[in-house]
């Protein structure tokens, strides 16, 4: 496909130049300018967050990307072609904000239908549908009409249909809306996985923590215009402040640290407290324990393994190798690029910066062996938990129901 070649060479998946969308009334008089002179690019393998309050032009932009609305002015290309180009849509997956699925179709029929639209063979459709249903935790409800599903289950099947073609560009409109924290976590894990496979993802969400956790770059819209854009580091780093996180310090050490701080800063300029788990982390922990005890539920279950074809379609040894690779990459120590963050990384938690710690002038802090000795087991415990979860996700070996 020529467009794909073009994208490969330029690395630009979506390009908008001077994009304008004006809604007009019956008499063709301008009614509202939903999008006003947008310029942005989305590069291959990037996870982009579109942020903005209601009416800021996020949905209009997404609908223009999908060819559901046409730009009034400007140029918009997806994979180097018009968003209305039919072939381009082979590479796109879309999860809308609302459930626009056919209520009379069962979950399996829904996936089979959308698979047919991609001209997949019956065998391939069946294989993918079953894997996706397993992945989104709806295997047990595959013969139930979608109209009977709860909102969370509908979101899950919506997500599954968006993945049926193993898209190169995935557009997720409020992907975690209606999902329980477990579902949210699975969606975020999926986005991380897709990114690892070089897929491009555009996410719109009102939940800023979602965006923060998964996106490389964000665009903040207001009044149809871009108000800010850049990587999360660029946008979120507060210059002129530092944070240090350590294992719990003994009182005498704490006193020493405080005295050093007091000698250099006023009381109002620094703060010491205990880091907290996020509620999401706590919730996930509780549910994981319940699942381990095989507590029955009639709703959506925790997703199973990622669909084979989404994991690269590897089989047997190759598959195991890929899984191991992914597992390794996700459990290895944090790397600078956000893409390589492990799934179980806790971005909300402060990062331990040992060089800064060493920079503190108190000798006692540097010579005391207890601190690193104490911190070691905690780190290992974190990794084993992450390993466990990832094993669940990737191989489905542990009891997930």
């Amino acid at each position: 496909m020529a467009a794909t070649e073009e994208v490969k060479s330029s690395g630009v998946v979506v390009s908008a130049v001077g994009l304008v969308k004006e809604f007009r009334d019956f008499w063709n008089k301008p009614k509202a300018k939903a999008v006003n002179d947008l310029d942005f690019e989305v590069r291959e393998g990037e996870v982009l967050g579109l942020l903005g309050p209601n009416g800021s032009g996020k949905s209009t932009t997404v609908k223009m990307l999908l060819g559901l609305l046409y730009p009034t002015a400007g140029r918009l290309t997806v994979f180097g072609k018009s968003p209305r180009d039919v072939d381009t849509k082979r590479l796109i997956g879309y999860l809308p904000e609302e459930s626009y699925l056919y209520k009379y179709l069962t979950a399996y029929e829904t996936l089979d239908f959308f698979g047919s639209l991609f001209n997949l063979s019956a065998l391939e459709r069946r294989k993918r549908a079953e894997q996706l249903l397993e992945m989104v935790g709806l295997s047990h409800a595959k013969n139930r009409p979608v109209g009977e599903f709860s909102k969370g289950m509908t979101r899950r099947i919506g997500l599954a249909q968006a993945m049926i073609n193993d898209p190169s560009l995935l557009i997720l409109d409020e992907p975690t809306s209606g999902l329980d924290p477990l579902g949210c976590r699975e969606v975020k894990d999926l986005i991380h996985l897709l990114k690892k496979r070089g897929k491009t993802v555009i996410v719109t969400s009102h939940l800023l923590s979602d965006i923060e956790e998964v996106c490389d770059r964000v665009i903040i819209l207001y009044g149809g215009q871009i108000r800010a854009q850049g990587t999360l580091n660029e946008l979120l780093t507060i210059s002129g402040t530092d944070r240090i996180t350590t294992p719990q310090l003994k009182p005498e050490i704490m006193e020493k640290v405080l005295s050093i701080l007091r000698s250099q800063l006023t009381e109002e300029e620094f703060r010491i407290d205990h880091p907290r788990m996020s509620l999401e982390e706590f919730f996930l922990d509780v549910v994981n324990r319940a699942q381990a005890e095989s507590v029955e539920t009639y709703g959506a279950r925790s997703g199973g393994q990622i669909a084979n074809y989404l994991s690269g379609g590897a089989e047997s040894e190759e598959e195991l190798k890929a899984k191991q690779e992914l597992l390794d990459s996700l459990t290895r120590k944090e790397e600078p690029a956000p893409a390589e963050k492990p799934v179980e990384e806790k971005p909300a938690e402060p990062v331990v910066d040992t060089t800064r710690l060493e920079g503190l002038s108190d000798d006692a802090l540097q010579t005391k062996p207890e601190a690193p000795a104490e911190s070691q087991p905690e780190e290992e415990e974190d990794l084993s938990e992450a390993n466990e979860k990832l094993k669940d996700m990737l191989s489905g070996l542990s009891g997930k129901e």
Partner: protein
Amino acid sequence: MTPFLAIVKLTCRSAVRSNVFRFLLFLLIVCVILVPNTLKGDGTVRGYLQVMLEYSTAFVAVILSTSVIWLACKEFCTDVENGQLHMIVVKPVSRVTVWLGKFTGVFLIHFVLLAISFAFIYVFLMFQYNRQNFTPAERARMENEVFVGRRAFTPDLGDLNQKVKDELARRVATAKKLGEALPEMDGAARRKYVQSVRMEILAGMGEVRPGKSKIWHYTGLPESYDGPVYIGFRIYSGNIGSKNQKIGEGFWFFRYVQRILDDNIKDRNGKPAVKETRELPLQLPPEQILTSAYKEFSVPGDILIYNGTAYVGFANLQTKESEVMHFQVTESPCLLLKETSFLSNYLRAMLGIALGILALGLIASSFAAFLSMPTAVFLTLSYLLTGLFSHYLISSIESTGGDNLELMDKVGSVLARIMISLLIPVQEFFVSGHLATGTLIEFSHLGALLVFNIILKGLPLCLLGIWLYWRRELALSMKQ
């Protein structure tokens, strides 16, 4: 092809799982089962079977017509309004394919229902027919008059336009000769006058005055036909009978061309060749005829037909000057010749109705492609009614146009003609009446309906609908 078939399948599923469709299906079943059991006809078994045939098939056609309009509008409009179509058009499938898939699905499910209904009616009809204690003669009559496909031949009217011209010229010449005022021959007045002359000529061709006779000529008949030829007719006027029925008296006569054979000369088939022919009149006994009622009698084909032509005459035995008998020569007396079996004719009727459903689906789908559901349904029904009444509109305007309404007449007439040329008269597809009288449903008629109505009139509308469907901004039409 897979996406197209998936959309067809989805449309069928949507229909089957919809409550409104289930209700219409229920109505269909009720009609197919109950209608035949509640009809009585004219009291005779033959009448019962005829009425059952006509009403059952007509009810099925009406219900499926309603259903196809509803389903087509629903499939196209609600998909857009509820955003479900968004999920399809963001996949690699063109909107033309989506339109065609939905339309095919709508038509397909109705065609299947039509086939099932017709199969049931046929089986039930044959069951009722076979369980009756008909005498062999009655059975033969049923099979020759009802359970058959007969081609109708009406009297040869010749070049009617030329006859009208000649008559006009004659009248002008006569008026000039006698020094009388010429009729007004401008604009609408001329058209009205010409129309009245045409009607007079036609009336004259079907008028049989008391004590007189009329002979009609038929052409285009088969070269040789051995079976019975049915002569169907309806006479207007006559006396009032004892039961307030109009009755008249007359007799029928025919040309019989007698072939005199020569045994010494053989033709290609080894049979004796025709040496000479003699034309003889054959007359049926005089009879009392109930007027305004349709009647048939049969004559052997080899007696009536010669070289693809026939002559049929009727003599009016009434005596009073006012007792004129009239035939509508565009319809009767007609010669009815068996052309095909009942089953074949029945399938042709089904095909006609299927084409009607196709036309309705096409119209509704075209409007629904770019309008909201209520507007699409309203426009479809308006289209049907306008198509239905355009012919009546023209004849009504032409018969009532006075001098003070001349401009309105013109505008109305032009509009009606434009409508006739643009709109599909869907009623022409529904041929249950023909089926019940054993009249052949001609393939040429079905072909003409397909070409002139569906392709020439329906296709442009359909292309307009597809084009608007293709270019519309779908996200603008969503219900919030």
